[in-house]
């Protein structure tokens, strides 16, 4: 199979879906002439023109609102925030409008809106450019939250997100953009929303990891295997809707669970999944569930501090050892 980077996979998905459907368009800061701050939208302006690849002023609320309004009248907007942190300026449109309009109108409208943004730290950009706020949006009914960890998933999930008729927060990770991996050929290669993927099979412990932490969990699993601990690594891929059944099945087999997520520990995705497993699978557990998350502090800039705060491969391996020893 051919190999693409995560970034190339996203770009290919955008191009294919824009070819497939003339109502799909992209807007955001620097998405056109510059091809996006991280180059995800590179080449789109040349291919599809300024009507469908729209450079905007620095107006996050209006960008989000333009997404909502254009989706309401039947277009299929993809809006980009350069950092998920900037969505805070657009929260009214995302939370009070995009997430609610279908419900408030009794099902009269649908909102095919994709909001793309990179999350998390790792490149020293500090507290206002490094947040993983996925939990905020998982909390709000009416939004779906997608977080791919491989180039193949990035492409297949983005294509599914664009074809879906709901508001979708599509979260990418800067540190993954350069990662390469096999990506199936064909414009109809899709990854369905709401289906988890078992990235590695194992019998001793289940690790549920999201986004950037999936490759970390896989590396940790490889080193634990040498020590005789067989880790099953599950990537939910969509955090909402969550494929809880796949995770529960795995926990019934391994009786141990570690949850890894780049969001903060308190009230994060890991906390929510923990609650789900307590409800669904409490009597299957042989040990307390372990959470590995970003420490509850704003993201610092200095490299050793950033490393201290962010999830590492060692953190995951340690949590697995604790869970197995219990």
């Amino acid at each position, binding site marked *: 199979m051919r190999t693409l980077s995560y970034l190339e996979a996203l770009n290919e998905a955008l191009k294919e879906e824009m070819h497939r459907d003339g109502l799909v368009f992209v807007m955001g800061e620097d998405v056109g002439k510059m091809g996006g701050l991280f180059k995800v939208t590179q080449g789109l302006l040349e291919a599809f023109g300024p009507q469908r690849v729209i450079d905007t002023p620095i*107006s996050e609320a209006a960008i989000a609102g333009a997404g909502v*309004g254009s*989706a309401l*009248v039947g277009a299929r907007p993809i809006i980009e925030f350069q950092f998920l942190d900037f969505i805070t300026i657009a929260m009214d449109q995302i939370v009070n409008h995009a997430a609610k309009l279908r419900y*408030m*109108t009794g099902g009269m409208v649908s909102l095919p809106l994709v909001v793309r943004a990179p999350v998390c730290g790792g490149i020293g950009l500090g507290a206002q450019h490094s947040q993983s706020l996925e939990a905020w949006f998982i909390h709000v009914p009416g939004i779906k939250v997608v977080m791919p960890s491989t180039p193949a998933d990035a492409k297949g999930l983005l294509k599914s997100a664009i074809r879906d008729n709901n508001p979708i927060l599509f979260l990418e990770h800067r540190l993954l953009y350069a990662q390469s991996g096999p990506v199936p050929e064909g414009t109809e290669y899709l990854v369905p929303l709401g289906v988890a993927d078992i990235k590695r099979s194992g019998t001793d412990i289940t690790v549920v990891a999201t986004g950037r932490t999936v490759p970390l969990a896989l590396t940790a699993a490889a080193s634990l295997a040498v020590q005789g601990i067989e880790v099953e690594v599950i990537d939910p891929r969509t955090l909402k809707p969550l494929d809880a059944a796949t995770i529960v099945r795995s926990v019934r087999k391994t009786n141990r669970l570690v949850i890894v997520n780049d969001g903060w520990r308190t009230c994060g995705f890991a906390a929510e999944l923990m609650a789900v497993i307590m409800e669904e699978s409490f009597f299957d557990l042989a040990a307390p569930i372990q959470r590995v998350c970003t420490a509850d502090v704003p993201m610092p800039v200095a490299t050793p501090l950033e490393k201290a705060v962010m999830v590492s491969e060692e953190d995951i391996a340690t949590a697995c050892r604790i869970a197995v020893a219990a």
Partner: protein
Amino acid sequence: MKRGKSIRDSPDLPRETLLDWYRQMCQIRAFELEILALQKAGLLPGTAHLYIGMEAIAVGACAAMKSDDLLTSTHRGHGHAIARGLDLGRMMAEVLGRSDGCCRGKGGSMHIADIRLGMLGADGIVGGGIPVAVGAGLGTRLKGGHSVVFCFFGEGACNQGSFHESLNMAAIYRLPVVFICENNLWALSAAFLETSAVGSVADRAGSYKIPGEQVDGNDVEAVFTAAYKAASRAQKGLGPSLLECVSYRWEGHSIFTRVEIRPQQEIAKWKRKDPIERFRGHLLRRGIATSNLLQQIDLEVEASLDRAAQFAKNSPPPDRGTAFEDVYS
């Protein structure tokens, strides 16, 4: 209901049109009075923001709309919905939270919508509909359509960041949007002149190099003329305009508002400028209608509201199970 040709195709105003405006203004007034009565009877869940005193704005502006035009509205949105031709019974049922409501009882007074009529929704967030209108204009253009978006908001919304972002964006993309500020001089307890650095919302148009015009919001013909001009301009691809319609709400901010801090004299002064009485006087003086004819319209309006209220009251409450539907497509 204005499906099909609009009078934007023929700006000479026929007598029937003027009588229709009178009827619509009376309908809005009667609708709001009926809501007050239903609230007193304990039938209203939540609250409602009444449009009494501002009827000329919705009727005059919506008269400039074509059948494929779109509108975004506000928390004080009953007038826009009625002027756009939404069914009175289904609106009333929505306000009462009944199963036959236009949004199945899930939206209520602040979220009335009817996408088939281009009514993209009232909005509970001050300034929340303004960016949506920009998007509707953008989406329409992408689809190759020729709709003009009529974006209603109050003077309070002009102090939201969304107002600035949206007008700037609409101006740079030359989007077909008519921004209609209903300046009723008060945002709950905040007086316009104490909360705005400029004395006229229309003046803010200069920041975006778009036409800005202030009109008497109690003069239905003046509102129509200005909205017609702005919509024609938008349709020609010349971009957005900002229209400030100065008026006054007779009732408190919402039905819930118990404290009235506006001066009683000021309220009384504006009640003497009743837009409906004023238009009625015009119609009589110009010989467009006899008092008999207007009385007949009044009776018809009364009857239509009786029917709407009856329809709403007879509509059963929604099934419990519907609470869990319509979150996702």
